[in-house]
């Protein structure tokens, strides 16, 4: 392992590939079983059982769904813009997954004498004796969240159907309104951590009451709600409102392309929960009897449960209510939070 490539030891590259594979497979599996968990949890909240017949208590349901979607006929509307129609699901899916590159999901582990941080886009600098990661990690995540909406808008436009177009337009309007509030909500975090590096933000939250959720409860709630709106989860699922827009932007999609939108939706949910965990719930910090990544996964899963809980509870917002909430309630609140933090934090 003494071999070096571009001034970095070989173990760095091997660790990178292993981390990417493990995280990718883990997220994919979570996406698959999030669909199952969602149906099960919402079912029980409505005093039903949810899927029961595919495998023990319906445990094979995601596999059955996947196989079904895979073998469905691919339909491309004759009046659709073929290229945009085909590329849109990819644009929706890829940003949802690559957001994980900067999220630290565990402490540094030592393999064969090398320290490897459990974060994909990071390495341990032996000379400086610390973990180097992307120093604008949060900006990267916010940027990817904005790219994701292109998939939805393109899908809506390329389908050449009025419902899809309305869904796509709603999505972009919603994104712009809530991205602003979400971005401003986490500015108070940067004011406290004085860094945009997620590694540093997590390091600052060591100790139980060091979590930013205790120091910034308002920012936490605002950011989580705005994130729900950004990823089009209920109660903000206007772009794909089934009852009014016949599934909105994915009306004309079938087969695997539809599945990709579905996966993107759930992957986005997981990303948002992971980002919220990192920024507010202390990342991988937790009592020492479990390794860091266990705490991280537990916190993310808890937040995913909260997303589903919210979905089972609230009806969809009306369009004007959504805009009023974003611009007249959340935006002033986040600005107020920044001002108050400015006075208190120092």
């Amino acid at each position, binding site marked *: 392992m003494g071999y070096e490539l571009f001034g970095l030891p070989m173990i760095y590259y091997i660790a990178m590939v292993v981390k990417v594979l493990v995280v990718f497979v883990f997220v994919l599996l979570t996406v698959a079983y999030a669909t199952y968990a969602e149906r099960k*949890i919402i*079912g*029980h*909240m*409505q*005093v*039903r*059982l949810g899927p*029961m017949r595919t495998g023990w208590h319906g445990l094979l349901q995601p596999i059955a769904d996947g196989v079904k979607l895979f073998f469905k006929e691919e339909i491309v509307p004759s009046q659709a813009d073929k290229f945009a129609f085909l590329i849109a699901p990819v644009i929706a899916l890829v940003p949802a997954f690559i957001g994980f590159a900067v999220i630290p999901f565990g402490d540094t582990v030592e393999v064969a004498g090398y320290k490897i941080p459990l974060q994909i886009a990071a390495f341990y600098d032996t000379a400086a004796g610390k973990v180097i990661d992307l120093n604008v990690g949060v900006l990267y995540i916010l940027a990817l969240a904005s790219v994701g909406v292109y998939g939805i808008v393109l899908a809506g436009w390329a389908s050449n159907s009025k419902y899809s177009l309305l869904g796509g337009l709603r999505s972009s309007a919603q994104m712009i309104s809530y991205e602003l509030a979400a971005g401003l909500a986490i500015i108070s975090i940067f004011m406290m951590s004085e860094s945009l590096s997620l590694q540093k933000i997590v390091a600052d939250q060591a100790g139980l009451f060091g979590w930013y959720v205790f120091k910034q409860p308002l920012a936490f709630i605002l950011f989580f709600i705005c994130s729900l709106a950004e990823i089009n989860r209920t109660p903000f699922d206007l772009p794909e409102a089934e009852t009014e827009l016949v599934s909105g932007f994915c009306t004309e999609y079938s087969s695997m392309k539809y599945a990709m939108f579905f996966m993107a939706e759930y992957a986005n949910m997981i990303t948002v929960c992971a980002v919220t965990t990192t920024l507010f719930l202390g990342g991988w910090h937790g009592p020492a009897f479990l390794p860091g990544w266990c705490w991280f996964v537990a916190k993310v899963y808890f937040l995913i449960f909260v997303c589903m*809980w*919210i979905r*089972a*509870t*609230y009806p969809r917002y009306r369009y004007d209510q959504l805009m009023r909430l974003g611009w007249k309630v959340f935006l002033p609140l986040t600005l107020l939070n920044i001002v108050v933090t400015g006075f208190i934090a120092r």
Partner: protein
Amino acid sequence: MIMPLINGLKITLKHMFMKPVTLQYPDERPTPSPNFRGLHALNVSHNKAKCVACYLCPTVCPAKCITVEAGEDANHDKFASVYEIDMLRCIFCGYCVEACPVDAIKMTQTFELANYRREDFVFTKETLLEKK
């Protein structure tokens, strides 16, 4: 403004721990109430149907699904030589049971009446006879 939202969350969380009301139908079967109106049955007495072919049931039937033809048996008694109910027309109102003067027809708890052919939905006297 915030409290109703939190109360809603509380309610859904409480419901999650309730026993689901779902009946896993083909595995678990429902028990219909005693006055459930399912498939008809012709009551039997002394090894033959009690029906005396008085034609009150086809008269009262709002769906006109009952066909009765009278016959005469060895004791010169009137009996129903043909008694058919078209289950595709029947609305399970139970008027035939109410109208019957000799308590010859009743309704059972059977509710699974699916079939493959239209002809099979016309239940004849033999199939309707009360199973002992």
